[in-house]
């Protein structure tokens, strides 16, 4: 019984991992210190730290900024949206993410700790959830810079297309994950 349950859980996790390969995702943001931070072509992620849903603060990937300061952002569902400086004043730009964190999804695996920890799971599972939550919180905030504090050229440097979005660009054309 125990082995079957573990196998099923592992399979579900793997499938869940495959299903979450979005074109716009935290996993696209290079880890600080990685080679991808130097060579990656992804734009920075734009976040709204004041979003009502604290679990979904992501606006999208920064594609381009024009000379008037309007930014073009690719949303997670694939469409490209424009934001004026007035709209994105409170938004943050994330060009990097921490190199050492456990990601948020690990919270969902915490119940599995009951198997290795037995009765101690009553303590370790909640603690694991708290740990994962803290790391998720940390990852979503580390290296963040308010767009209003950045000059136009500084934002431009973090666009995926600093020269402008190519006409033939389709939001899903790039591989979803480069890290």
């Amino acid at each position, binding site marked *: 019984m125990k082995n079957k349950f573990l196998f099923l859980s592992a399979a579900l996790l793997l499938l869940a991992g495959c299903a979450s390969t979005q074109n716009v995702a935290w996993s696209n943001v290079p880890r*600080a210190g990685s080679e991808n*931070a130097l060579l990656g072509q992804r734009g920075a992620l734009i976040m709204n730290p004041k979003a009502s849903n604290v679990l979904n603060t992501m606006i999208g990937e920064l594609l381009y900024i024009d000379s008037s300061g309007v930014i073009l952002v690719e949303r997670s569902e694939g469409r490209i949206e424009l934001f004026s400086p007035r709209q994105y004043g409170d938004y943050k730009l994330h060009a990097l993410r921490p190199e050492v964190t456990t990601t948020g999804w690990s919270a969902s695996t915490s119940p599995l700790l009951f198997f290795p920890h037995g009765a101690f799971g009553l303590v370790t599972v909640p*603690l694991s959830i708290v740990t994962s939550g803290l790391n998720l919180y940390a990852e979503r905030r580390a290296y963040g810079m308010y767009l209003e504090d950045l000059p136009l050229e500084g934002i431009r440097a973090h666009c995926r297309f600093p*020269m402008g979005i190519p006409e033939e660009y389709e939001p899903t054309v790039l591989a979803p994950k480069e890290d």
Partner: protein
Amino acid sequence: MKNLLLNLSLILALTGCTTWNHADLTKKTHSDLELAATERVLHPKHEITLQGYYADGASVIFAPDWRITTEGTITGNMQRLSPQGKPASKEFALSELDVDGIELWRTSRNLKLNERAFFGGTILMAAVDLGVGIICLTSPKTCFGSCPTFYQSESDHLFKSDAEGFTNAILPTLEHRDIDALPQIMLPGDERIVMKNEALETHNINEVVLFAVPEVSGSEVVHTVDDEFLRVLQGPAATVAKDGLPLEEVRMRDELEWFEWADKKDLAAKTHLDVKFEARPGKQYGVKLVYRQTLMSTFLFYGTLEHMGADYGRRMVIMNHSDAQKHWLLEGGIMQYLGSIEIQDAQGKLLGAFEETGPIAANTQVLPIGESDGHLKLELTQGLWRIDALEIVEITEKVTPTVHHIIRIVSNQQDRPEEVALMHDDTRHLISMPGDARELYFEPLEAPSHIFLASKGFYLEWSRTAWNDEGHPRALRTMLLQPRKYLRDQAPVYKAYEAEMEAKFWASRIQTPILTSHEK
């Protein structure tokens, strides 16, 4: 229980290793290749990749081993990318690239280990300051030079110049006359001063004149903090002490200066010195001080400009027309907390202050204190001032100097009568550019004289390549709105290279070329 402790430790470890603070931009765009190359100067220990974009969005990206050849091409391991960012090949290949057609450059810098895990964004910002600090250390004149420097002798040592002209006049509307005592008695026939521009500044000089008072044996003529001239006699010997310990360095003018390291937590922290001397009733005394500032003033001044970044020019124009901002620059803001060297009597009553700025030339000034009980206190900002000598003088009379105008200017071994005419016209300015040196000859003296050099004008600081970026708006905002906090925040940054800068201060010699992008 064991697991509980383990998990608690895990939480602490993970949260402790997380960078929560504001980071700096690691990617920058540049309009030309040379500007992109300065990123390496700013961050000499970082890996920096270079990407050049063509008009259609296609690009080439170089691994960190790229270099610019003397022919203006780039060599290094390179990969071509489509306008959509897809690589044309899997691997990078060693190539040489002609930069024709590239319209935009982008550099990407990686974060070093200590910038990532343990120090976070605040220290990252400090690292940028340090990067500029390294440039200052490599080329001291780029940062330390300021205002016209004047030499009475042939010495060309920047830090041994005899006078600095119109310090603080960094805007046209801040033009003012500055008087500095020259250290040597000038003899008739030797009425010559060398004026140099040793910084990345445009000097606009309206007037340079000499004030002369004939020498009388046994006496000295001094310049007061209120721009008067007094004949004085040597007064009683003074003992200067800090925390009860006498300071031998300030006993006489010998270029052996006393100074303190800045406070590690607060750049505005004050320090106190006690002065004692045998005072006699009925005598009019003065405190003669030979002093200059440390490099803290340079650090804070250039830090301000660096915070402005590419916005420097616009902000300076605004400041030029705003009395409130000029007040902030000279007397408000952080200046109100840094202050001057205040002289107090034994009861703590303020008698006056020495406030000449600049770290290059030593200033010799006198503060008349009248009759005294022989007990004085000095209050000054720790780590901001260098004192070569503190002496007590006895004031005998007020004197009026004769004025000696320029009669001849020689530069590049040629007479410049047109420049002499400029110096005689109160409505016009002589423009002096970086690297310029002029010999100024003055109307003759009648006798060996004490000399004071008066210069009037203003200078415009050149924007450095290193400032041609986003600056630090938040730091600038803190500086403007919370100057006290700013001085505390900057303390660890300044401390990080204070000792090295001081060492460099004493070792530096002028190099002739000034290498910046402005000189292309």
